[in-house]
């Protein structure tokens, strides 16, 4: 290149003539803006993150939500109390039982109705089985995002059995509408409890497979340890809950600390523990710690299910609730421990058949806010691992 053929250099380049026929050109490249989503297999739903990257280094990340916004809260003001239940299934569709439970408990707090003991125990069994199912998806698809294709189908093998159990009890595999205001939709069919017990026995062996195959796998550890570190202060400031906060070493679980249904009884009997991350493989609060918490929680859920099976009682499964429900005037907030964090329902009633406000505090929505702060500074490949470790379901982020 000679000087004569060189076109006018742009303002950001610096051209230096080194010798005969030699030029050095400094080019400053601007940061690249990449759309991560809305259509992307690793975003766990339709979510768009506008990433700014300087080469491989992420310098900015801005989540854009709303692609799956289905106006759940507005619909809550237009349909009757009992009719709203199927909508609750669909925000966090991987843990529908827990969503139903959260909504039912919030309305029951206003109604002041007593739930039969058998219904409470079956509710806990269903909620914990669904927690296992949700963590299986979280763990399996997290491995898939990172590149581990095998464990994904291993986890889905158990999940199929869990969904078959739920199909036997309520007819649906994913969005159950089984836990209703006042109790349950119907009683468990004969033989269901025996099959749940068999599932618990088999699951414990299979769980060991997940740990051996993926959790302590050196490649997985290298890809997830020491990245996406969420400090304790950040976790509290951002209102993070669930495995996000236990993965940062904070000892908090609503089932033990603000118990609902009969979790306080189960805790006092010593049936289960709360796994709190200790930073075994890297810094405390990294992605590995969060996935460790989820894997450990699956075994603790099995112990809770076993306790409920051992202490099952006979009796009705639903309290006496009229078909057209009128909830007394008032407002209540009830938060439960969803697989993703604290799912809160804030319901306001003016005494009528329809709620005047059904606010859903989705844990995925609150957990996602931390991405704007932890993604910058990581590599693009690590960004995928960090997003997967927040375990979001976009149905709950957008509602």
């Amino acid at each position, binding site marked *: 290149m000679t000087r004569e053929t060189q076109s006018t250099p742009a303002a950001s380049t610096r051209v230096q003539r080194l010798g005969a026929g030699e030029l050095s050109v400094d080019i400053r490249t601007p940061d690249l803006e990449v759309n991560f989503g809305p259509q992307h297999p690793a975003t766990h739903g339709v979510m768009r993150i506008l990433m700014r990257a300087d080469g491989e280094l992420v310098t900015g990340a801005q989540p854009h939500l709303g692609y799956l916004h289905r106006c759940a809260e507005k619909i809550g003001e237009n349909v009757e109390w009992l009719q709203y239940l199927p909508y609750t299934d669909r925000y966090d569709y991987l843990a529908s039982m827990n969503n139903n439970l959260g909504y039912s408990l919030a309305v029951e*707090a206003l109604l002041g109705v007593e739930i039969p003991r058998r219904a409470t125990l079956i509710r806990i069994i269903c909620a914990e089985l669904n927690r296992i199912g949700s963590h299986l998806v979280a763990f399996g698809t997290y491995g898939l995002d990172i590149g581990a294709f095998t464990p994904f189908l291993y986890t889905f093998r158990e999940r199929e059995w869990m969904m078959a159990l739920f199909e036997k009890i309520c007819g649906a595999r994913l969005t159950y509408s089984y836990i209703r205001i006042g109790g349950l939709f119907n009683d468990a069919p004969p033989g269901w409890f025996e099959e749940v017990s068999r599932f618990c026995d088999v699951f414990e062996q299979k769980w060991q497979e997940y740990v051996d195959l993926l959790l302590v796998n050196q490649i997985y550890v290298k890809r997830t340890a020491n990245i996406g570190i969420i400090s304790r202060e950040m976790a509290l400031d951002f209102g993070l809950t669930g495995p996000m906060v236990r993965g940062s070493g904070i000892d908090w679980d609503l089932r033990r600390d603000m118990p609902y249904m009969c979790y306080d009884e189960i805790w006092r009997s010593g049936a289960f523990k709360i796994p709190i991350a200790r930073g075994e493989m890297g810094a405390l609060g990294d992605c590995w710690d969060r996935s460790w918490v989820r894997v450990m929680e699956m075994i603790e859920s099995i112990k809770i299910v076993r306790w409920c099976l051992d202490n099952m009682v006979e009796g009705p499964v639903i309290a006496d609730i009229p078909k057209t429900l009128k909830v007394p005037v*008032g407002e209540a907030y009830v938060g439960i421990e969803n697989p993703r964090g604290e799912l809160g329902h804030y319901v306001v009633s003016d005494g009528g058949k329809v709620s005047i406000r059904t606010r859903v505090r989705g844990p995925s929505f609150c957990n996602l806010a931390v991405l704007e702060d932890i993604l910058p500074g990581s590599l693009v490949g690590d960004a995928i691992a960090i997003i997967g470790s927040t375990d979001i379901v976009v149905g709950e982020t957008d509602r």
Partner: protein
Amino acid sequence: MDFQAIHDRLRAVAAPGLVGADLPRKPDPKVKKDKGRAGDPFVIVEAQRLVEFLEVCRDDDRLKFEQLVDLSATDPAKDDAQLWINVQLLSLKFRHRLSIKCLLPKAAPSMPSTVPVYRASQWHERECAEMFGITFVGHPDPRNILLPDDWVGSPLRKDYEFPKEYHGISCE
């Protein structure tokens, strides 16, 4: 601490903006048509002083509300001239919750942003702003969060009218 103890503590430290409390009660037999109130107790705080109030809640040794769990708004009725702001706080240390309600005039709903106190409210305030038309003064990033950037109207208000079309697509 239960709600009564929390409320007493708030009064003892003269928490700014504290107006009063509302407790659930049975219907008063002497008053006709009184339906009483079910559910949770809450404190009522002046919206313009919510930021200082939340600082006291977060920092006081006996309250220690480390987390803001939820910040949302409610439009109680079409003919009601006020909007409610509902805040749920959580203390991990003392295992207690607090529900706070602020009242905003519907005609000009504007209040200082609580983001300096809890980062958690950043996204919650964005959602309230777009759904109810509330302005949070000093919010670092006041963009729409769930709705498209060019959405007209505040959907969760009771007098919201659904658009007939959006960008030429019919919404009927």
